[in-house]
């Protein structure tokens, strides 16, 4: 499948970093489990068989009357009455965690937040919502947010840094001054102001953070381009007649990408942290969405319920550590010295 010898050697180097390699698999499993979160944690069954007919409530709402109920509204599958009705004439396949991140458990034995028990493995939060379900959804949104933000800022940052470094002169001067002024903008205040005008959602936050996060990449990429544009092999490429953009793409960018790669896991971890802290402060994702920051905030407000703070802490700590370990392994894989010395 993979025939390019350098790709094979990079993979070998990646595997050689045991910690990073193991982290990669753990992270991959977590990601694969949480990406289809609706199938893992949901208050609607995946499939229902009733009187010989198959129903898939996870995709579609069914009227309660179809299962012999009395209301013409959407069926609530947590209602014991309905469950009993269905089980008499068929079966129910529930997701692994039979709660959505917004499901309120009305039948708690003690006031919310309730301690972990066999039904709510990680307990419930102060609005009686299952913590495990919220962690699964929160993990997914954090990772997706982090990846999206990192990849888009890397693309913008590399592009801006490459232009400044390669052409130098006025382009560089104006670009650098712009970045100096732009990075002086107080991101947090902008977010607070934004939050008072509109209700920020995933895309609003992404857009706003993107305005500033791309600058992190400019420095390393620009430095690499400044250094490389006077290299002999770049001169040789110009002597061959290669155009500026092709030289940038083929001869200089591969070098700059290593620096970018080394930088990426930190930006990724940083993006996750930023989203978490915004949620913690209450100016992040809209109220009610599953988020790790909100979980932490609840933990802080409810010291009598330590499972909230502990869950929040461990999920964030493990996720960030895994990302950093993977990042280190990726950096090793792209390191030309490691690539060629340990044959």
């Amino acid at each position, binding site marked *: 499948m993979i025939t390019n*010898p*350098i790709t094979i050697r990079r993979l070998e180097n990646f595997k050689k970093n045991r910690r990073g390699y193991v982290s990669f698999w753990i992270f991959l499993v977590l990601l694969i489990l949480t990406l289809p979160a609706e199938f893992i944690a949901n208050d609607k069954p995946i499939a229902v068989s009733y009187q010989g007919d198959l129903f898939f409530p996870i995709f579609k709402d069914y009227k309660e009357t179809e299962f012999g109920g009395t209301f013409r509204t959407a069926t609530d599958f947590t209602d014991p009455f309905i469950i009993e009705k269905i089980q008499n004439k068929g079966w129910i396949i529930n997701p692994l965690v039979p709660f959505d991140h917004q499901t309120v458990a009305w039948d708690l034995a003690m006031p919310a937040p309730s301690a972990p028990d066999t039904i709510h493995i990680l307990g419930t939060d102060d609005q009686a919502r299952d913590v495990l379900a919220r962690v699964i959804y929160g993990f997914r949104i954090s990772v997706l947010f982090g990846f999206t933000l990192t990849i888009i800022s890397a693309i913008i940052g590399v592009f801006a840094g490459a232009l400044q470094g390669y052409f130098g002169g006025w382009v560089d001067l104006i670009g650098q001054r712009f970045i100096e002024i732009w990075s002086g903008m107080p991101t947090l205040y902008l977010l607070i102001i934004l939050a008072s005008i509109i209700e920020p959602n995933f895309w609003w936050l992404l857009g706003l953070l993107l305005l500033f996060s791309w600058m992190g990449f400019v420095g390393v990429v620009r430095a690499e381009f400044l250094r490389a544009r006077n*290299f*002999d*092999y770049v*001169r*040789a*490429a*110009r*002597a*061959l*007649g*290669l*155009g500026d953009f092709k030289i940038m793409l*083929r*001869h200089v960018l*591969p*070098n700059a990408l290593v620096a970018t790669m080394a930088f990426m896991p930190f930006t990724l971890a940083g993006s996750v942290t930023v989203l978490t802290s915004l949620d913690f402060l209450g100016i992040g994702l809209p109220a009610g969405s599953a988020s790790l920051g909100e979980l932490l905030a609840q933990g802080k407000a409810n010291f009598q319920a330590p499972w909230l703070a502990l869950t929040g802490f461990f999920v964030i700590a493990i996720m960030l550590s895994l990302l950093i370990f993977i990042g280190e392994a990726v950096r090793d894989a792209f390191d*030309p010295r490691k*690539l*060629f010395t*340990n044959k």
Partner: protein
Amino acid sequence: MTSPLLTINQLDVAFHQEGKRTSAVRQVALDVHHGETVALIGESGSGKSVTALSVLQLLPYPTAKHSQTSSIQFDELELIGASEKSLRNIRGNRISMIFQEPMTSLNPLHTVEKQISEVLLLHEGLSKKQAKNRVIELLELVKIPNPAERLDSYPHQLSGGQRQRVMIAMALANKPDLLIADEPTTAVDVTVQAQLLELLQSLQKKLGMAILLITHDLRVVSKMASRVYVMKQGEIVESGTVEDTFSRPRHEYTRMLIDSKPSGHPEPVNAHASEIVRVKNLRVWFPIKRGFFRKTVGYIKAVDEINFFIKAGETLGLVGESGSGKSSLGMACLRLIDSNGEITISNRRIDHLNQRSLKPYRKNVQIVFQDPFGSLSPRMTIGQIISEGLVLHGIAKTPQMLDQIIGSTLEEVGLSAEMKDRYPHEFSGGQRQRISIARAIVLKPKLIVLDEPTSALDLSIQAQIIELLRDLQKKYAISYLFISHDLNVVKAMSHRVMVMKDGQIVEEGQVDDIFDTPKNEYTKTLLAASVELATT
């Protein structure tokens, strides 16, 4: 005879890294007597510098390890395993070292005074005032003009030769018994090299110190040393007095080193050969800008009103010291830097074309650089590097054709076709230079600018590369503009020679005329410096 100052016995050095053991030096034995100059010669990677560094115990321990039997005795004191404190007393005080690269061995943020007085304050406990006077004395000793004014200069304000003199002054500050000189003159011009060696000799006489000279340049050895050790792949293969060793070498490696001087002559040019290149009134001026509004107040004339022509299959040698504008001239011919004046290649003016319309003519002129490590893109395979131009100029239409051309070109430069999937890191300096040459000749250019293509290589490899370049010229009638500061190489390569100084041509003519009967004063100095080194 008194006991030797330095005795090295059964020295082994091995590097342990990630479970792997690489032996760098094996069973080396040598001694240096008081006041004597001993040379340690060998090609790069032979373990010379590792041996020298282990004398001062400056290797990266514990990655580097000596064997149980290894012994280095300096004045009856065992240095291997000596305490850090006693070693510090010896370093810079009784044994000093000077390095090859004067720019990186001086701290760029310290003035000359601070660099030199550091050693004095550390080892001799002089007061600041005494130290200052001593620094001036030392600068006088190494013959730096106006020493008192030079005290506040920073390294970048000095020339390469002056920097090396400051290094020597630092090394001599505490009157060491032994000076270890690791390639002290490799990075400087010939005329400066001659002066520096003379200086070292006179200082040795004055101070009576011993010198352990590490070099790959046999001319330096025959001028300076009385005894010589020849090193190959970590072992000493031959030793003896310089005269004996050089006139009757016993080991074949020594014989190869001595014989590998560049020699021979290029194939004579066909009398009816057409003119490939003509350059008229070429100027490369860099503006000097001053003041708030960056007004141009003058120009640095790197290349000033130069005219020359090259015929098909001819090599024009371009000689000059560093900073004389040789490289700028070469780059201007390729339109890699801005210039004024006419450049005609194969009867086609290329100086007024913009980069886009220049593209079809790019393949006619190629370049090979000095540094074999910086001239190949580290992230491209050899095949990709060579094919780039072929694809760009639409020479190879199909992948099979591309493969075939790459394979045959690699074989032409003395490599094998299977190497095309490997990366530059996996090759030695000489092999990399062959790859650079392959990248240039694959486009079948009319002219190749060779910018010091052999200066970074060992002597034996130099000879091979010169041989290769001459063969290629014979086969394809390529013209070369051969830029070098090494007169021996120029003599072996060129038909005609131009001597360049401060952006101008001071003399030009047939190679034999220039070397046998130079007319210009500067040419004479250049030749004298290199001849003086050649004869003892």
